[in-house]
């Protein structure tokens, strides 16, 4: 069972440039969350702050009662053993082949014998579909394979929290779909807390239980998937539906003139909310909620055509 991550009043700036301020949220245990945001809003910075690679200026990140921001170096290394992190390019160790890469955390942290290690490594390699590529060096394989290998390495210590830094960047749509299915299946299997940083709309519409949106140096909204997908809030609506009309401009935000010119433009209607991606064995995940539940309990009428079985396909980006 995963653990939750409590983020309180987190603020980070580089020099005089504020990246984001006063970010507070709780990533619920065992659920899949997606953190969205336009390019350059510091999503990766947030991820690195969560694992203590970057120190925030203010605020705290609390995991199992320990504040990662103020704890000692030693505690930090202990807490990090709870994490599995998939970096943008996989961050495989270039000097080792895939097998040694995946075995690395086991060899460093456990006293398992080589045959036990072999069993675990092969299991994880099988999980991400990399059987047969163990002897390859990271430089010899494609970006998608590197990512999957990075995922295998992130999972090898049975983490309680798995962080994904843009799992879908640089992957073709088919591979992205497979990876998304893999993420959902994994969550069903290991019940860890998943946090995915991405700007892929399709992923964020179909995969997570919760969505957060970083925009204009703050956390614009964080909540259940259906809440954000049915939200009329301009920023959320613009981003989740990939539209040009709205407060987000080409460079960060639009100026007053542009916004005034758009004032009379009608926003296109909200597209239907697609069904959430289910585990491939059909057994619902522990944290999965029935489609439409949030809308019903909060008295929100979902856009017409929502939660229809084929809307998974129809729910893609409409320009």
């Amino acid at each position, binding site marked *: 069972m995963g653990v939750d991550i409590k983020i309180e009043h987190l603020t980070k700036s580089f020099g005089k440039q504020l990246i984001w301020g006063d970010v507070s949220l709780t990533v619920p245990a065992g659920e899949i969350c997606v953190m969205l945001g336009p390019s350059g809003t510091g999503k990766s910075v947030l991820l690195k702050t969560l694992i203590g690679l970057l120190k925030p200026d203010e605020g705290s990140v609390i995991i199992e009662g320990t504040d990662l921001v103020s704890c000692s170096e030693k505690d930090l290394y202990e807490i990090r053993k709870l994490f599995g992190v998939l970096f943008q390019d996989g961050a495989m160790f270039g000097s080792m082949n895939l097998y040694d890469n995946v075995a690395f955390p086991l060899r460093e*942290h456990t006293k398992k014998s080589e045959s036990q290690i072999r069993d675990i490594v092969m299991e994880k390699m099988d999980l991400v579909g990399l059987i047969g590529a163990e002897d390859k060096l990271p430089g010899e394989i494609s970006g998608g394979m590197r990512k999957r290998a990075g995922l295998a390495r992130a999972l090898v210590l049975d983490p309680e929290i798995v962080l994904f830094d843009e799992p879908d960047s640089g992957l073709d749509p088919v591979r992205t779909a497979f990876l998304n299915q893999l993420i959902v299946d994994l969550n069903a299997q290991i019940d860890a807390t998943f946090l995915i940083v991405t700007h892929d709309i399709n992923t964020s519409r179909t995969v997570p239980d919760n969505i957060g949106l970083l925009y204009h140096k703050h956390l614009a909204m964080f909540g259940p998937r259906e809440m954000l997908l049915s939200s009329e809030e301009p920023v959320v609506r613009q981003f989740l539906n990939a539209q040009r009309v709205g407060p987000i401009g080409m460079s960060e935000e639009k100026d007053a003139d542009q916004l005034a010119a758009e004032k009379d433009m009608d926003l296109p209607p909200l597209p239907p909310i697609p069904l959430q991606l289910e585990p491939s064995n059909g057994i619902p995940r522990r944290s999965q909620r029935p489609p439409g539940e949030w809308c019903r309990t909060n008295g929100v009428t979902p856009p017409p055509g929502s939660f229809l079985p084929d809307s998974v396909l129809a729910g893609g980006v409409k320009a």
Partner: protein
Amino acid sequence: MSSSSLTATKALKPIGTAGNFFAFALDVFIALFRRPFQLREFIQQAWFIASVTIIPTALVAIPFGAVIALQVGGLIKQFGAQSFVGSASVLAVVREAGPIATALLIAGAGGSAIAADLGARKIREELDAMMVLGIDPIQRLVVPRVLACMLVSVFLNGLVSVVGVAGGYVFNVLLQGGTPGSYLASFTALAQLPDVWQGLAKALVFGLIAAVVASYMGMNAGGGPKGVGDAVNQSVVVTFLLLFIVNFVMTAIYFQVVPPKTG
């Protein structure tokens, strides 16, 4: 922001960098005593550093020995003390040329390789990945490199001394018409055993400085592949500067502690 405070920030930046560097050096020192010791990485690195430095060092040492023989030989002839050529040559090679040639090679070949390696790991997020996997890169990567660099540098110093003296011998005997007997016999006339020790001590310190600077630069590389290039470049330049300064200081201290032999 007023321009004066901006200037102040810029002016104080080198001090901040120096502070970070010493903090890093302290981290390395602390990690030196943390178990488990990475024996495998140490041996691999020692082998690697040796393999990139041995041949260049030998090739540098030969002309170094020859040029010293040439200089000293000419000078000493003017003083009319040809019988001391061997001694002066040994003295120069063991005391100064050995450590200096070692410093050049360990910084230029060993240090640049370390900075490039760690810099590439840094920009590929390998170091981040390692920290996230709960492994301290300073203990896992930097400490073995520093120790390997120190070990190899001591050996290189020995190599330079031997090759340099041999080169001086060949030059003196074959080209300058010196006699083998007087060259060898005068070895101990001016030189003494502590000269060898101080050469080794210098080499040890040079190896330490080169590896720590290179690791620091590599681990703080930023901004993509260009950052790695910059890190390597800076690491070589900074190491050279430091090594020549430290060499001077150590020589000065040595002469205070061990007075030169009087005939």
